[in-house]
């Protein structure tokens, strides 16, 4: 049974339908990559799973519990689902350690000492323990994204949603961020990530889903999607990606 089940999800902004019946399953310890042209609704889907956007139809289930629709405690849900955005993640008025410990102390009511100790362990793992007292604007973009990941991890989520977390970064900073995601995948973290890094998707993904015109147009293991796509649209999309030199 799938850890995360997305069944027939519809999402519209006014008259504009972004998602028109998305079906997608994520099994525990799997890494699922969402690919698709810009504006196809990858970010929107991730925000819906996290309850940051309301859906207009369909159902989202996490560990067989309905997490979409009326009567849902969004704050509870979000404690279990960490999300990292493309940019503007960190709180600029807080130091790195304050960013990481905010939610554990305020939401989980962890003691400050305990939260800081845990935060330091995590920061050490990404090699940023020396930057704990720095403010985000003094960090490089890559360091900021690593802190953002750690901040989400500090809540010990069961599922991580990563939304194009490297697309705002200079190429030489991309790998330091991807290395962390790679480590998380090895440790068995369940992840759903939207990405334009096809090479990376090929390497870490258990499954790749091609989102097109508001539905999952094609899905399958990375070898099949990248090597032998069945659908015409998928082929066209990948061809453009290859032409852009990103695969």
């Amino acid at each position: 049974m799938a850890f995360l089940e997305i069944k027939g999800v519809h999402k519209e902004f006014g008259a504009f339908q972004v998602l028109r019946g998305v079906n997608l399953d994520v099994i525990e310890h799997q890494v699922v990559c969402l690919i698709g042209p810009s504006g196809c609704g990858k970010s929107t889907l991730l925000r819906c799973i996290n309850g940051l956007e309301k859906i207009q139809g369909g159902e989202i289930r996490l560990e067989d519990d309905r997490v979409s629709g009326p009567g849902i405690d969004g704050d509870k849900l979000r404690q279990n689902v960490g999300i990292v955005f493309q940019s503007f993640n960190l709180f600029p008025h807080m130091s790195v350690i304050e960013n990481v410990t905010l939610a554990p102390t305020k939401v989980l009511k962890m003691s400050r000492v305990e939260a800081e100790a845990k935060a330091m362990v995590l920061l050490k793992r990404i090699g940023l323990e020396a930057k704990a007292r720095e403010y985000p604007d003094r960090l490089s973009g890559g360091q900021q994204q690593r802190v953002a990941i750690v901040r989400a991890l500090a809540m010990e989520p069961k599922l991580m949603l990563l939304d194009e977390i490297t697309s705002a970064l200079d190429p030489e900073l991309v790998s330091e961020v991807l290395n962390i995601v790679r480590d998380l995948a090895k440790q068995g973290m369940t992840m759903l990530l939207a990405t334009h890094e096809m090479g990376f998707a090929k390497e870490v993904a258990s499954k790749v889903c091609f989102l097109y015109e508001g539905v999952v147009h094609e899905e399958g293991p990375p070898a099949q999607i990248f090597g032998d796509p069945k659908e015409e649209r998928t082929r066209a999309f990948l061809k453009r990606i290859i032409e852009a030199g990103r695969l």
Partner: protein
Amino acid sequence: MTDFPAPSQHLPRRSDGFSVAAMLFAGLCVLAAFGTTRLMRGALTGLGVYASAWEIVFGLTIAGSGTLFWPALRSLVVTAKARAARARNDIVELRIETAAAKDHAFITFGWGAFALCIFGFISFVLTNDAAVGKTFFLLPLIQAKWWLVTKQFLLNNLFIFVATEILVLVWGLMVALARLIPGKAGRPIRALAIIYCDVFRGIPAIVTLYLIGFGIPTSGLSDLIVPHIVGLFIDLSAMSVAEVRAVTRIPVSWWCVLALTLTYGAYVAEVYRAGIESIHWSQVSAARSLGLSYIQTMRYVIVPQAVRRIMAPLLNDFIGLQKDTALVQVVGVVDAFNQSRIIAANAFNLSAVTIVAILFVLITIPQARFVDKLTERDNARMRAGG
């Protein structure tokens, strides 16, 4: 494609005019210094306080304004160099020298304007045998009355605005948050906040003061409520009516605090709201995604960032508020301005009012510098390094 001229064709404009103008301006300033010192000599003699020691001051004033010739001269010298460079067709040198010549000329203009303003002010005060000066700055009167005025300032103006500022900081934030409450259920609250802001920003502060300062005590509203509250702490049953009155009467200045809080709460709420709305919405997403509730998001993430941004406009409103404490005299509070008007009426002289003006300026300056410091510190902490 358009043909861009080669860089070497962009010759800087000649700086000769600037240098000559700087020399003329320096000359003008020295002349003004002469005139001002003459006027001072006359006025001081008229006042009977002239001593030959003043000549040293006058000499220094003229010599000081004479130093304006120094940058003007340097400007001329550098302009001459620039001319030579132009003749040699040395473009780089020409650019450097021309820029330097202009810089020196503008130093003359800047400091010259500064000096002229001071001379102008001194002349204004001393014209007509210092009649202007005596009207506004009669030293004996200032010496005799400054404490009386300052005392009223501390007792009334200072008390009222400090109390109001503390209340406004809290009240304004509450109104701003009410105005930003999300969702359908929040609509009536939002409407209330909007109505409040519209009404109290619209009513002139002096009218609100009048209505509340007179209205609430006269209407008996306070007699209806206050005795019950005071009764919780003091046993009123054994007291006569007059005694009860005495312990339950609320000073008028407290009503002034209430009135000004209502008025300025509306302004400050708008400032808060602008600050909160200026924070990028993704900060809300980021906070909510960590499981923080709406209130926690506001409390720990959005409001702290907003407050840093609104420091300067907030200070603006506070200075406005501080000055508006001079209005409380309409309900009979003897504040510094009221006191000084009484003195002015008795002495046929405005110097006591000048004291009030000075007091208001004096309390404003440290606050302005304090906010500058805070802003600077935050900027240094959050943005520097890079």
